[in-house]
């Protein structure tokens, strides 16, 4: 079902429903259209009944969720639960077996690579660079989706890229070689590239893996800040439930390719639900300073 099909289908249901209620079709059509427009613009990312397999192995099964505008949604689950695959499906890298993914109401399957890259930027766990690119060159690559294939970055693009680095407080890295900078700095540079891509949706795959505690906090604070300031919808996979508890507005719990629970962080982050997903007893507690924490029960 394409984006427009979905729109008209929903419209039809709405018309029927409101027809019975108000008995005047002309007014109800008007209301339904407005409502639909609002619904679509409020939901930058909708995933409906997505299935995906690697050969015979079902990696994702009937995944359905949506993420509200400018919120941070955490994808949690044990290793192999399908988190990274789901991000791949949303960014259009992996072809869906069935189901649909809508970016601002447009179906990913119907969009070109460029169109997807104008809606969704991806911050990978680690970049696959082979050649020692300069940090500024790495960031400038974020301009590719808005350039024709024969175009190269302009001076204005360079200024814009330097501006983004400045905002993130890492302008002095611009001339350094990407492989020479630290893990935390690399992650910040990739976030800078994603910001230059100027998309409404940002996907991050384990943004804090391989980072020490200080850098984990630094990166997640930064993600929270850019999400708030730029009104970016963030979907990120995380391993640490404590980070998710603190930084995410929404949580999706995945296990064996299925959603076990989803909703607001406080609703989802409950000991029973987490214990089910991770297969280990966990407890939620509150520190003396009032911070909520998740700890395994076996630590008692």
């Amino acid at each position, binding site marked *: 079902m394409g984006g427009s099909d979905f729109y008209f289908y929903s419209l039809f249901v709405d018309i029927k429903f409101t027809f019975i209620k108000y008995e005047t079709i002309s007014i109800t059509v008007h209301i339904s259209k407005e409502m639909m427009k609002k619904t679509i613009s409020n939901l930058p990312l909708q995933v409906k009944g997505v299935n995906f397999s690697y050969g015979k192995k079902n990696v994702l099964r009937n995944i359905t969720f949506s993420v509200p505008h400018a919120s941070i949604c955490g994808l949690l689950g044990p290793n192999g639960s399908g988190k990274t695959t789901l991000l*791949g499906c949303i960014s259009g890298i992996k072809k869906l077996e069935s189901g649909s993914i809508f970016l601002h109401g447009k179906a990913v399957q119907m969009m070109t*690579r460029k169109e997807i*890259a104008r809606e969704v930027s991806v911050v990978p766990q680690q970049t696959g660079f082979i050649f020692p*690119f300069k940090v500024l060159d790495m960031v400038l*690559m*974020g301009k590719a989706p808005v350039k024709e*294939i*024969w175009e*190269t*970055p302009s001076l204005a693009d360079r200024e814009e890229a330097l501006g983004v680095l400045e905002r993130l407080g890492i302008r002095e890295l611009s001339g350094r070689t990407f492989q020479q900078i630290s893990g935390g700095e690399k992650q910040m540079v990739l976030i800078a590239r994603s910001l230059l891509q100027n998309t409404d949706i940002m996907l991050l795959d384990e943004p804090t893996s391989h980072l020490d505690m200080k850098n984990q906090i630094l990166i997640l604070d930064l993600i929270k800040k850019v999400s708030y300031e730029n009104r970016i919808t963030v979907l990120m996979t995380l391993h640490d439930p404590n980070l998710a508890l603190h930084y995410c507005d929404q949580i999706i719990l995945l296990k064996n390719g299925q959603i076990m629970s989803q909703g607001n962080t406080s609703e989802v982050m409950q000991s029973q639900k987490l214990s089910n997903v991770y297969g280990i007893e966990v407890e939620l507690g509150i520190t003396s300073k009032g911070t909520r924490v998740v700890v395994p029960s076996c630590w008692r």
Partner: protein
Amino acid sequence: MSIGVGLYSLPMEVIFELVSCKLTNRAVPSELFSPSVVFWSVRLPRAIMALLVGAVLALAGTVFQGVFRNPLVSPDILGVSAGAGFGAGLAIILVGRSALAVQSMAFIFGLAAVVAAYQIGRRSRSDSVTVLVLAGVIVTAIFTAGLSFLKYVADPYEQLPAIVFWTMGGFSDIVWKDVYWTLPVFIAGTAVLFFLRWRLDLLSLGDEEALTLGVDVKKMRVLYISASTLIVASSISTCGTIGWVGLVMPHMARLIVGPNHQFLISFASVLGAIFMLIIDTLARTISSGEIPISIMTSVIGAPFLAYLLLRQEESNF
């Protein structure tokens, strides 16, 4: 200077005189008649061809290293040269030395070779950069065997000498006709690669990352490989197999201007052109006979590959 030196020496003032005669449409003085023939018909087309071939081989090498994300590859290492050599040989046996047939067959088999090497490398379970090099060795072996078979069945008086010419590589027989035949192909291929140069940076990050940055990876890869193979095949069908330039020059250029393909593409081409002109000048001047050019490039290139392999252990290039 390259044009001046050689068995028949042409002093600079003679060259200037010959050029000014041409420009002002004056008749060449009788004492300059022989130098005129040497200059216009032998040295100049040869020097131009050396510059062009050096530039396109270095360019194709740079593009291959970016597309395959592998600093150890070049058109000759991935079997393009062997494939194109075989194609050229096959064309000579089937239709004779028609420039169009030789170039087309060289292109088709060059392309087949690189696709085969890439597929073997991709299907291998190991993801190491050296696997692709080994795949190139396999493809090269197959096409070299094919070329040997062609030599075996070739007419020893007409076809065989023409085929042997390719395996050596060189600019000794270059005339203006060769330049005219290859120049449009070189310009077309180079223009495509030049205009698409920035996307090579993105492609070199890997397929998934390039896709998320909006690059149509499959389409771009086909464009890069086809354009590079076209210019290499055209070069091979005219000047034979000249190895190693495509591997060494991109590295030299990267050391000087860095890995950003926006600048690397042009710089590597200029470097390749200068290098080839120097090598060709040396090949025809350091001994009384002419040394085949691939011998010269191999002497420099092979140790360089050894150096790269050893350095690979330490860094990511």
